[in-house]
């Protein structure tokens, strides 16, 4: 699971100018032809930096994203749900492994990435800083947060960096299972008692604002992404992905008879664009910078896992081990 490149930072377009113009041209021509860039290929420093940041954040999001759902495994209603949720959470952690590996081919070690996560230097998808109060919250995450992640990941899978695309192909295949599982959970609540319907409606009300934040800040206020689009690091703008998500899933939510807590939400049939209340970007900024309901708790769980697993890693490490940057 992963929400848009919310903290991409294209601070200096100057970095690009310092690159060898002949190599840069050949690089851009390859991308324009639809070729994939592999770890051993020449690439601009900015391309490398942005990809590391993006893939690493995606990996952290998979790991941290498993936490709010993971706490529901023991309380999932019934054995079938328990088994399915356990398998889903295990998938998410596996996605984290695949993504850390893809980022590693660009030259940042896994040790550095994990250090940056637990010391708060690296971001993860902001939506996981919110709590899952009830089972219906877990159902919302499995259906709609995963749906948002698929919109984002299918776009990125057409990007230019080979190892990331291959990891995403694998991830998307698994996420589509999660989506079916989540949809089934929600249909079950929707077709249930008044109390079950109320439970999901309340979860929907709680999660809608963070869901609208999920694809990152509106295009008009987000960082300049032209060069990242040209290099196929970013495949669609935040607003384009948000619109695609609304287009695919709002009708499905309405179909189940639920209300989305946004009075102006409506599709403009002429332009194909959705109208919605502008999300509160101040809250988004506040939460992503550490002041959300669960930021401290999410990192605390990751830190304790780090401390408790240390003796195992120390025991496994041998003196004649050495590190080589992986091939692809």
């Amino acid at each position: 699971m992963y929400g848009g490149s919310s903290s991409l930072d294209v601070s200096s377009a100057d970095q690009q100018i310092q690159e060898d113009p002949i190599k840069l041209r050949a690089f851009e021509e390859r991308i324009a032809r639809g070729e994939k860039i592999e770890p051993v290929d020449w690439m601009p420093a900015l391309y490398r930096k942005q990809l590391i940041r993006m893939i690493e954040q995606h990996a952290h999001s998979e790991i941290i994203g498993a936490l709010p759902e993971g706490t529901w495994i023991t309380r999932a209603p019934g054995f079938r749900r328990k088994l399915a949720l356990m398998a889903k959470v295990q998938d998410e952690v596996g996605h984290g492994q695949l993504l850390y590996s893809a980022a590693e081919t660009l030259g940042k070690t896994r040790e550095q990435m994990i250090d940056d996560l637990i010391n708060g230097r690296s971001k993860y998808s902001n939506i996981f800083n919110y709590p899952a109060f009830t089972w219906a919250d877990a159902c919302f995450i499995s259906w709609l947060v995963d749906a948002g992640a698929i919109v984002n990941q299918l776009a990125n899978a057409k990007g230019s960096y080979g190892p990331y695309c291959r990891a995403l192909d694998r991830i998307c295949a698994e996420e589509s299972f999660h989506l079916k599982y989540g949809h089934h959970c929600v249909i079950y609540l929707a077709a249930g008692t008044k109390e079950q319907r109320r439970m999901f409606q309340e979860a929907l009300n709680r999660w809608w604002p963070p869901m609208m934040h999920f694809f990152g800040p509106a295009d008009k206020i987000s960082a300049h992404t032209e060069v990242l689009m040209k290099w196929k690091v970013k495949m669609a703008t935040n607003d384009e992905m948000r619109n695609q998500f609304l287009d695919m899933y709002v009708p499905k939510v309405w179909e189940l008879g639920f209300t989305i807590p946004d009075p102006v939400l409506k599709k403009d049939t002429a332009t194909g664009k959705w109208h919605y209340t502008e999300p509160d970007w101040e809250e988004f900024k506040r939460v992503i910078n550490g002041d959300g309901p669960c930021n401290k708790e999410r990192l605390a769980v990751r830190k304790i896992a780090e401390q408790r697993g240390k003796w195992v890693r120390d025991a496994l490490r041998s003196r004649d081990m050495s590190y080589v940057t992986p091939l692809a």
Partner: protein
Amino acid sequence: MASHASLDPRVNRLPANMENPDEKIALDQLTTFEVFVQPKPGKPFQHEGIVHASDIEMAYLFAKESFTRRFTCSSLCVVPTGQVTSSPMTEWTESVFDRLDQVPSTEGSSKTYEMFVLTATCPRGNDRGSITTGGHAGYPGTVGGEGSSECLGNTESGVSFYSGK
């Protein structure tokens, strides 16, 4: 939500003042192994990615979990990254054959090597068979001359083969 009562039972059990863990030391995440998967009998092995592990046994287990849990395969193979010798990429401007001198040679007795070729149409390394040499890491061009890069893994020093299903 009150800050002291978390919905995560693990958090409620955590010590109150937890310090930041120490910065990780080198090799805390162990070393890496390259994973090759044969999707169907008779098909070439394809490079799928890497796993972090302490030894070949653990690497094999992690490869199985990471790469074949949802997709079946007929065979799975892992090799330490350090055991793979790879030629530079040529970007199609010259033949890999001309770069023979850049491939490091190793002394020793006769060994069998698996050979993979990376091409633009097939960006994952594709298994092109094995060759036996008298200690040298191989002869680029003899098996997969049309490729833009080749890599060789030593089958004797830690490739594990799995013949399944």
